[in-house]
């Protein structure tokens, strides 16, 4: 049930990480290194974490977002969140990450 996968779409300046599944402590730990490898390989100006296919996210999702925010910054880019669902939005709002990490919809 808590399988989390990622698809990567890159263009000249952007890397979009499309997450699919549920983000909890179990699923987050299996995917964070894979995402980091892509962030450092592409060194895109903007990295989008697309959450449109994420049906559930707890505070481990916050950890996943904040960790990728740090790594993207280190790689010279900016992290943005795309299409968060209601559950992700509530958790991000509670932690205040919506104030430091821009949210966009497409």
């Amino acid at each position: 049930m808590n399988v989390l996968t990622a698809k990567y779409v890159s263009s000249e300046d952007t890397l979009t990480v499309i997450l699919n599944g549920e983000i909890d402590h179990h699923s987050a730990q299996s995917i964070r290194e894979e995402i980091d490898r892509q962030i450092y390989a592409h060194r895109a100006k903007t990295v989008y974490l697309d959450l449109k296919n994420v049906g559930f996210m707890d505070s481990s999702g916050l950890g996943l977002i904040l960790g990728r925010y740090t790594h993207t910054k280190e790689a010279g880019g900016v992290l943005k969140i795309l299409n968060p669902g209601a559950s992700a939005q509530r958790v991000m709002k509670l932690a205040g990450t919506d104030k430091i990490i821009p949210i966009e919809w497409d």
Partner: protein
Amino acid sequence: MKKKIVNETEFSFPAKSVNESFARYAVSSFCAQLDPTIEELSDIRTAVSEAVTNAIVHGYRDTGEGRVYIKVRILEERTLVIIVKDTGCGIADITLAMTPLYTGDPSGERGGMGFSIMESFTDDLKVRSSVGHGTTVTMIKRLSKL
């Protein structure tokens, strides 16, 4: 006056992270008999996921050893009591552990928001802990009237 128990269930499972999703879906499936709103169900899932993750990651230090015990009670007036218990290492300073953004995980990959989420997504949260004996988290959620 103490509310009567209408229904209850309890189960336990090994403290393996793969069981986090099982735990939150088992609890939300049991609560579904009260016909909660989608948002209430989502609150329950999230709060249970946080409590179970804390038990696995902090109570048992992510070793996969030990068991997590869950009890869910449905009381009168659409009141849910969810108890998540571990017999792990316990919390030395509960006030510090419950401080928003505090994390006992040095990797920085956990948000330090577990207790804040449990507190905010339920109506009442109580944490009892004893170092070397374990932690019991009791959450109360009052569902809206039908």
